């Protein structure tokens, strides 16, 4: 589904990714771990199409086609979703209005009719219930004044409504309390199926008890230095990263 080949990327002449290779198949769950500043969020942003980065070498294929020339919205419309490490706020735009606009943009790109407000509200209320979020969050300005955990949960709400096939979760577990972690993981697992893939960026093995990865990769200094199965996460938890760095 997603194939990253020898990816080199700079920001402001600073090399961040230095030959990254990663291949994610249909229905697979991959996890990326790695020290602060190693390039995890950079990778996520590049996949989503953020323009600040210069791709100096390599390619990214999505369903067999290069997406490097695609705009962020085209990628989103194709089914790439990024749950942001730091979700942004948009004052004056209600969460539900934002989500409906987003959903209808995606539907429009597929030639589908827009959802009417009533239809949308029904869908949103159903999804929000699964995530045990307060319904009032739908009427509040997008992420404005949301608690850290509410913002993260809201990202997963968006994922479950927009229904992407490739979801990238950037530290969605950070800032969640233990119950919330469980709820978010349930939300993700409910979304999981044979056609939907995940790339889960996290610092904590704990999350992977709930969202069980097929593969774990360690990103250090802009390259993947080690890959393994879920036991690698346990090993990292006890040994840290230093044994992989050099």
């Amino acid at each position: 589904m997603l194939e990253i080949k020898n990816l080199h990327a700079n920001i402001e002449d600073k090399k961040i990714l230095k030959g990254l290779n990663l291949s994610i198949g249909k229905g697979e769950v991959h996890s990326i771990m790695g020290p602060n500043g190693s390039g995890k969020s950079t990778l996520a942003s590049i996949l989503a199409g953020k323009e600040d980065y210069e791709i100096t070498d390599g390619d990214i294929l999505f369903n067999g086609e290069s997406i490097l020339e695609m705009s962020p919205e085209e990628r989103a419309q194709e089914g790439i979703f990024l749950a942001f490490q730091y979700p942004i706020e948009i004052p004056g735009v209600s969460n539900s209005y934002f989500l409906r606009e987003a959903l209808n943009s995606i539907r429009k790109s597929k030639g589908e009719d827009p959802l009417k407000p009533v239809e949308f509200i029904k869908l949103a209320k159903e999804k929000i219930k699964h995530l045990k979020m307060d319904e009032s969050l739908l009427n509040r300005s997008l992420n404005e004044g949301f608690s850290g955990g509410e913002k993260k949960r809201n990202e997963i709400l968006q994922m479950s409504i927009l229904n992407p096939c490739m979801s990238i979760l950037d530290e969605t577990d950070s800032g969640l309390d233990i119950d919330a972690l469980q709820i978010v993981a349930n939300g993700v697992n409910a979304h999981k199926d044979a056609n939907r893939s995940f790339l889960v960026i996290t610092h904590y093995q704990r999350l992977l008890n709930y969202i069980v990865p097929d593969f774990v990769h360690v990103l250090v200094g802009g390259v993947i230095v080690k890959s393994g199965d879920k036991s690698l996460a346990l090993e990292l938890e006890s040994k840290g990263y230093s044994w992989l760095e050099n």
Partner: protein
Amino acid sequence: MREELKIDNDQATKEMLENEEYKYGFVTDVDQDVFPVGLNENVIREISKRKEEPEWLLKFRLNAYKKWLKMKEPNWAKLKVEKIDYNSMSYFATPKERPESLDDIDPEILETYDKLGIPLEEQKMLEGVAVDAVFDSVSLVTTFKDKLAELGIIFCSFSEAVKDHESLIKKYLGRVIPASDNYFAALNAAVFTDGSFVYVPKGVRCPMELSTYFRINAENTGQFERTLIIADEGSHVSYLEGCTAPKRSTSQLHAACVELLAHDDATIKYSTIQNWYPGDKNGKGGIYNFVTKRGNCVGKNSRISWTQVETGSAVTWKYPSCILTGDNSVGEFYSVALTNNWQQADTGTKMIHLGKNTKSTIVSKGISAGQGQNTYRGLVQVSENAQDARNYTQCDSILIGDKCGAHTFPYIEIKNPSAQLEHEATTSKVGEDQIFYCQQRGMSEEDALSLIVNGFCKEVFKELPFEFAVEAERLLSVSLEGSVG
């Protein structure tokens, strides 16, 4: 006669296609009676004569003209405006056939209003909205007049009011804005042509929105509207004005005066959606919008609320103000001003607290894109006798791109120490992160921008009557087109 009246449809369509951003830029080709250019006493006498005005009104005009001749154009605003030659424009333009009723209106003109989204024909009229349609210098028709009259509400063109309600006009004209108030007010008092008159009697709550639709059509013609709204004791009225003009390469002047007067316990809500032609991408043409708007809350517990959405005009110069004379009276000003390309706006309000326990609220949202310059200028004045006056001011500016500017000039004059004032001001850039976030969720950059900017204006839009809030959002999106990428 009818054969002579034709609309140049092809040209209109062509112009509309050429410049999608301003879709009201077409010209209606009707046979018009236009005064020769130039301004002098004879022109004023002729306007007055055409309108069959009483002697006192002619005197009012001539006095204003004399004062105007001695006044200087204001230049303190943060505006760069080419010198206006007052003798190069015409002061009166009217379609030759003055309609007696709706049936007599030229079909081309009716079609114009249809295109503008304000059908005047009985069967198509907007529900719950009475419309006064002003085409250049004259009011063509006022809808729902009879229905309103049953409640004692007067809603008609200013010219008609002079004839049918002379005593009211004589009593109130110039009472809130004296003819000598400022340069443009004096000019307006001398040459004003048409506008609307509203009188809501004691205790009546006006059951529908009243609105005036101003359309400039003739070339090289100034439009000088005069509107007067009186809300008698305990009454309530909501009024809205909308404005458009054809695309032309030369600038045109619109200098309006609007006076509001609220008696005890009365409320006037005045909303504006100003979408005059803003000029082209290079700053050529467009309307000069120099407007004096003022309301006086003469009665106790009265309330005047201005809401404006200013997206059009090459230059906007207006400060809708409230004089809070009555005890416990309330003044409000909610504003969205957008400047794109080379547009300039210098707008804000004055809240003059005279009575006790008076309260004012100012919420101003400035949006600058392209090379647009957007200035908020506001005065809060608390007089010696205005015990316990309160004001809340919030001025937010948002910048799109890095060639535009936002400026804020709040002036405060306090003569009573019990006054409580709060002021908040913010300037922000539309964040790339915000746009990227929206794009990541599937929206285009332009949709993202309009979503963010509309969110920024939310507090003001919610003050508009519902039908018009939707229109305002749409207008904002259209006005922002081309400002990304």
